[in-house]
């Protein structure tokens, strides 16, 4: 029976347009799909014709998804995408040839699938990585007896581009958090010779993952990235700048607890520790789970999960203007020490003055006349 699944080389080069047509999808439906795609990719509606043209000719590339030190939250998030749904993604857009959580094959067969995809699509496949890579000891994370580092390097070799999904893969994430017990590092800490798109978030917004994938598949190019390697369309503006609660910040109206009048009226969550001002992500516009809500709308301050080292930002309920360490204690210890030092230094002053007084040489009129 497996024979039915033998590859038919001639059909492998089908474009997305071919697939759509073979499924009897009308041009109008296709245009609608493109409009939704443009919206998802946070592109101007003016781009719809371009997207249509590009998608028409897009191929269905092989995608290898590697999971290292992760929690599967990123994959879970991917399955929540409502535009370019996971179904349409894995059936129409891409060939997801290796993905632990979703693939049918296990054990050796799974590894064979990965190796086959790498061999057949060398130089063309897209590598998606979630999770960080522990450099403290190869035994800290292995798959099929292979260390994460070895598997990443081996698989990255033939990749056309790499998408690092989630904060762990992009910046090291929670395993990297102080004291980073396993020596976790990010993908771009290890790979320097491939284009890498960082899609941070803990997890990233579902449609941002698919949006980035779709962009790559549609245009075959890396979207414009910011200084942290993030696509600007999604990570170009801070949560704070696009937050619907911003006017309350500007007016100085803040929720003080989670269910006071301010919380109920949707006042700004800055005082509750919101990291929106320093966090660049699309939550405020894209929202989560098909526009249902997002953390700030649900009354919880932004954790800042799309930023590097957000775990070590000094407490999720400490506002950005608060120091991250216990300054009160520091101040008390310092004061105690400084009083001692001050007394010593003051005593030096005093003794210096006393010796000056002791050295006093009486001035007489004769002295003046000299």
């Amino acid at each position, binding site marked *: 029976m497996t024979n039915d699944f033998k590859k038919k080389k001639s059909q492998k080069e089908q474009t997305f347009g071919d697939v759509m047509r073979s499924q009897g999808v009308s041009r109008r439906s296709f245009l609608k799909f493109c409009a939704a795609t443009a919206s998802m990719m946070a592109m101007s509606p003016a781009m719809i014709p371009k997207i249509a043209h590009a998608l028409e000719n897009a191929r269905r590339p092989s995608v290898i998804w590697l999971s290292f030190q992760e929690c599967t939250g990123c994959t879970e998030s991917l399955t929540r995408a409502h535009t370019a749904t996971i179904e349409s993604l894995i059936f129409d857009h891409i060939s997801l040839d290796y993905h632990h959580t979703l693939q049918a094959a296990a054990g050796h067969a799974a590894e064979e699938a990965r190796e086959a995809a790498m061999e057949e699509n060398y130089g063309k496949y897209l590598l998606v990585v979630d999770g960080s890579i522990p450099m403290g000891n190869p035994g800290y994370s292995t798959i099929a007896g292979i260390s994460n580092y070895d598997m990443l390097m081996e698989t990255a070799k033939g990749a056309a581009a790499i998408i690092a999904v989630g904060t762990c893969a992009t910046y090291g994430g929670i395993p990297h958090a102080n004291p980073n017990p396993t020596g976790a590092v990010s993908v771009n800490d290890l790979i320097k010779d491939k284009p890498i798109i960082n899609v941070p978030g803990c997890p990233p917004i579902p449609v941002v993952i698919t949006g980035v994938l779709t962009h790559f598949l549609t245009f075959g190019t890396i979207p414009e990235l910011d200084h942290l390697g993030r696509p600007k369309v999604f990570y170009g503006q801070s949560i704070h700048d696009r937050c619907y609660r911003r006017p309350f910040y500007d007016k100085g109206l803040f929720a003080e607890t989670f269910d006071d009048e301010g919380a109920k009226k949707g006042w700004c969550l800055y005082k509750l520790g919101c990291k929106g001002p320093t966090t660049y992500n699309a939550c405020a516009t894209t929202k989560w789970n098909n526009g249902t809500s997002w953390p700030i709308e649900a009354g919880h301050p932004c954790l800042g999960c799309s930023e590097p080292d957000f775990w070590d930002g000094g407490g999720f309920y400490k506002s950005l203007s608060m120091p991250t360490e216990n300054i009160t204690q520091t101040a008390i210890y310092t004061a105690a020490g400084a009083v001692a030092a001050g007394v010593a*230094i003051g005593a030096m*002053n005093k003794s*210096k*003055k006393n010796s*000056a*007084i002791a*050295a*006093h*040489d*009486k*001035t*007489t*009129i004769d*002295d*003046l*006349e*000299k």
Partner: protein
Amino acid sequence: MSASLEKGINALKEQVDSTVASFFSSCVHCGMCADACLFYTETGCPTATPIHKVEPLRRIWKSEYTLLGRVGKMFGLTAKVDDELLSKWETKVYDHCTLCGRCSMVCPMGIDIALLIQKTREGMAAAGYAPESLIGATKRAVTIGSPMGVKLPALMAQIKHVENDTGLTIPMDVVGAEYMLLLSSMEIMNFPEFIEAIAKIFTKADVSWTISSEAFEATNSGIQIGVADIAAELVQRIVDAAEKLKVKTVISPECGHAYMAIRWEGPNLIGKPFSFKVRHILEILDEFRQDGRLKINGKEEQRLTYHDPCQISRRGGVIEQPRNLIDMFSDNFVEMPDAGKMNWCCGAGGGVSTNERADKVRLKVFQRKKDQLDEIKPDAIISACSNCRIHLEDGLEEYNMDIPLMSLTETLAEHLE
């Protein structure tokens, strides 16, 4: 480093105490003291900025008494005090400052700049950077007993003269008298009317008083030049005389810095409290007034104003008394702008009048007083400091102003019944 420079630096080191340290710590270089100083307002020269004048003392504080300054000094980064600095600063400290203390009143940080200058002069003098004329005056004060060289015979001659003129007795060396009067050389030599006036008032008020033949000189050149050792010696003479005569109160005459020296600095200079009180003559007179011991006959109709001598008013706290006294004989009293504790200096206090080198500048800065007077146009000026009087007269003459100048004590005496 020369021995004298070393001595000067040591003297500056001695001067730094918590007040000095807090003052220097607080200065923000706002420049407001300049606007309060007639040497700046009348010359427009920024070197006259009061806080600038205390640079030698500031450098010593910084390099000796601050952590950062000491560290800087180790690396040669903290500014040093040397002969060049001191010689440059000599005129700033002695010629361009009358220690009037007006800057101390406006500093928003509360820096007592006059005090700092006084302390700076201690170092300058010790290092040998004091004006020659001041040195001469000081020498005379120490050796002869008076900066102007007035000896006892001269005083006795003037007393004789007064006694003859008025028929009053001027008690000398009366043991057990209540008051012991001090006189300034100027009063003895230039304004013997003052002695006459006192004799008249005290007689009418019926008080027991005396003048000591051993310590009649009120002025203290040590204070002006900034040599505490000498100032103390001069104070000690008065203390000895007062103790010898067992007086209850020593009266400082109409002389500003004399009052400062004996009333406020005296006990601190000799290092122990006095066994007697010290009062300014105006304080005494005002007490008499309160006690109803002064009966006035007729009032002046002239438009009178009062020039506050700095050391008496602003620095000495005798502000109300002269006005109370003037009120007794005047219905037409007018205050100058900024009168009272904020009044402007005549321009010759703090040893400037003694300092011949400063003659030109002191007359220039008199412009300030002139402007004040021009604004109110008085018929006559009353003052209570012989030093002020001499300089005011010089100034009025310089600026061709024909305004009579009177001593408060003398004018009061004239109006006694």
